[in-house]
């Protein structure tokens, strides 16, 4: 008896019990998620860094949205719940904004983080990395970064 009461109470706040979908709806969403995943997985194989990042993170955001909306039923949840979650995400970005000027840089007005540039890379890993075929992912990443890392370091040294 109590279980039935509980089961009804479970969706008591949803506008209409039948707003919850049939199983097929969720399977469809799952299908879309799998396709999106496949695209994001394939991204790196194209070798173009900007596309990889767009597919990887852009798709991650879309997938997250789909899971939140359809699986967690945030679309029919009370608005304040969504607002609460958005506020927490906002705090997260606030944290990132406030801290990144300190942590994300290799150099500042009066300092230079040489250690970051000279970080210990164990020999056997360095050599192995070349053999494994990872460089098509690694190389484009390396291409951009050392330039911006090297230039300020050179300036700082002057």
């Amino acid at each position, binding site marked *: 008896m109590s279980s039935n009461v509980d089961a*009804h109470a479970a969706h*008591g706040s949803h506008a209409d019990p039948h707003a919850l979908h049939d199983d097929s709806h969720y399977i469809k969403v799952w299908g879309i998620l799998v396709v999106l995943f496949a695209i994001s997985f394939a991204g790196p194989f194209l070798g173009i860094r900007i596309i990889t990042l767009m597919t990887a993170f852009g798709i991650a955001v879309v997938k997250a949205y789909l899971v939140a909306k359809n699986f967690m039923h945030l679309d029919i949840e009370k608005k304040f719940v969504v607002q609460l979650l958005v506020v927490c995400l906002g705090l997260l970005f606030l944290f990132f904004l*406030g801290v990144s000027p300190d942590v994300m840089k290799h150099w500042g007005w009066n300092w230079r*983080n040489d250690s970051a540039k000279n970080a210990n890379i164990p020999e056997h890993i360095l050599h192995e990395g070349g053999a494994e075929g990872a460089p098509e992912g690694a190389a484009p990443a390396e291409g951009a970064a050392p330039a911006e890392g090297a230039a300020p370091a050179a300036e700082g040294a002057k």
Partner: protein
Amino acid sequence: MAESHAHAHEPHGHAHHEPEGWFKHYFWSTDHKMIAKQYLLTGMLMGVVGAYFAYVFRMQLAFPGKPVPGYGMVTGADYNALITNHGAVMIFWVAMPVLIAAFGNYLIPLMIGADDMVFPRLNRLSYQIFLVSAIILGASFFVQGGAFGGAWTSYPPLSAKAEYNLTPLGPSLWLIAVALEFVAFLLGGINFVTTAMNARAPGMKAFDIPMAVWMIVIASIMFMASVGPLVAGAVMLLFDQLIGTGFFDPDRGGDPVLWQHLFWFFGHPEVYVVLLPAMGFVAEIITVFSRKKLFAYKTVLYTSIGTGVLSFFVWAHHQFIAGIDPRMANVFSVTTVLISIPIAEMCFVYIATLYGGSITFSVPMLWALAFIGEFLVGGVTGIFLGASGADIYFHDTYFVVAHFHYTFFPIAIIGTFAGITYWFPKMYGRHMNELANKVHFWITTVAFNGIFIPLFILGASGDHRRIFDYSNFPELATPEMQAMRVFATISLLVLLAAQPIFLVNFFYSMFKGKQAGANPWNANTLEWQCPSPPPHGNFDVLPDVYRGPYEYSSPDRADDFWPQNSPS
């Protein structure tokens, strides 16, 4: 349907109360009132511990190199461990458990007209985790090398490497204790917030909720939103300490400033987390003892929420000279000075509440007034520190110490005494001895100022903090400065000497105090509309609410109060 069934009429709160054994009643209870008392007593005990630490290190500062009675010789390592744990204990194991866990647990269900918290077993679990955290902290004193001495802020690399802090086990135990305390309060916070949001009596709308409940709820939300990054940081620091990762080690690509940010992103909202409940208690007390409604309920509510939000935007003012990006220092300076506005606003509202009221100088009222006065001093001195230019000089001096004690002492100590003296009759069905309480009040308040005013002067004169023996610094060891240190220490001794008055009063009155009725203060809020002490289930018939909590001296009534649950 199920919902209407629940709302229609809810008869007894005390459902099926089988007689409990002694163990279950005192140690295994799920009753929010018992759990509240467990938190209260644990917090008070830890308060004695924290006070003892302060006694020892202040004696060392006043009489350097002399053995301290009741402790012995204080070495540099001892001193560091004492100040570190004084801070940690007072914030995490005294202020939070007493103000939030004890009073929150006790008051929230009563003030919203419920029979218990919505998750009683989770409540019990929260306390048990909290107790374990206190035990682990205690254990850190008895391990090889001794307790952690890297300051309550635990900055790496000092806190990360045993070769620097010379206490191989202490820091990890300390960190685990703090992390467990966070877990306990996360669980507790969820309980409080869910209870206050959902379990309110029928008719209690948002603006009918007493300010004490609102403040504890807002504080819990702030805690839950701010502690996340520090939990992550604590895991990272623990890995650095125990398995040799380099999250905060610059030689390994890590960044110690990251820890500072992770810590203070929590640490600053934390001080408002403890402030708001104390302000909530003051709001309850000043309305009852001036027989006046709160001057501007919505203003207080919105400014509290605004303070809570703004508190997330000021954290780096603790790091002005740590090497952060100076442009960020500008931003945080502005936000820090801004945050003084809502809090000052609240103090003004409280003063306006008192103005023209029919004031009774009962003991709770004395504590509430002391809170407002002392906290204003603390707040104003914070503005000096918030200006990043001035902070270059003041940072890590005793000026900072005096500032945060002028804020923390009102919060944690004055707020606690205000709450206990006000709600004691409800909790134990008896009155405390009023004369003893008044003596305790005056000695405590005067002595407190005697400790920290010299510290302001010392700080402005350049006294750096966290130094265990100033005789090595000739410019700081002048006779005048040392005289101030001695004066501060003697004031502390006076303060400590007065506390047994309260403690004896507290425990004696629990058993032998004058019997108190349900509503000795003629107050409106729901906790006073049930027996003292409330039985299991709180209310014989769960109340319905018809009005706000501060309808005092209403012109349409003969009585100068109007309980929230009276139909007419």
